[in-house]
């Protein structure tokens, strides 16, 4: 049983560009959450998708948007990249209470 998968593993972009990150949840999981983890800090909740709708959102600007597909996979889009967006972006999937993280995408903005 494959766990949560994310692509790409690493990404380098320049300020002002746009980026799309992808996530496939653990088999049977219908809820996908996205987190941003800066170096040396705990993950910060960005938003969560359930039944193709954004169910909850953390304190992130509208430059951060997402989508969930009928097969429960999800995308995170970030527009107008800033240097401060450099971080590890984690996707987590859950069915009920337990939440499992993917390996993350390391985004570097130059």
């Amino acid at each position, binding site marked *: 049983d494959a766990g949560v998968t994310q692509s790409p593993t690493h990404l380098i972009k320049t300020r002002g560009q746009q980026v799309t990150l992808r996530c496939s949840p653990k088999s049977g999981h219908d*809820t996908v959450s996205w987190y941003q983890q800066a170096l040396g*800090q*705990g*993950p910060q*909740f960005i938003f969560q998708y359930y039944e193709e709708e954004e*169910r909850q959102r953390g304190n992130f600007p509208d430059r951060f948007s997402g989508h969930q597909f009928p097969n429960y996979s999800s995308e995170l889009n970030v527009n107008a990249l800033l240097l401060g967006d450099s971080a590890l972006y984690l996707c987590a999937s859950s069915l009920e*209470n337990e939440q*499992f993280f993917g390996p993350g995408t390391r985004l570097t903005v130059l």
Partner: protein
Amino acid sequence: QQPVQSPQAVILREGEDAVINCSSSKALYSVHWYRQKHGEAPVFLMILLKGGEQKGHEKISASFNEKKQQSSLYLTASQLSYSGTYFCGTETRWNAGNMLTFGGGTRLMVKP
């Protein structure tokens, strides 16, 4: 507001015990514990739901005191593989759908 974890860092010898604490200023519905090794994803350890239950997983257990809005993670007879950063993630309302607020982490190093 994120929960506060203590200590921030701890160094142990193999076989020693450790306690990691997680305190919130808000009433908690659940506490989730994760361990993250350098360059890897956080790995789920356990979840404690409102009700003051205690859970165990081999030599790692945790308690949840909802009145004090605190949870503690107990590591007994530590092994080298326990090294990593431990995070608590909290939910402050029922049916929050795992919208977790994480603490700053506790860095644990186990030496031979």
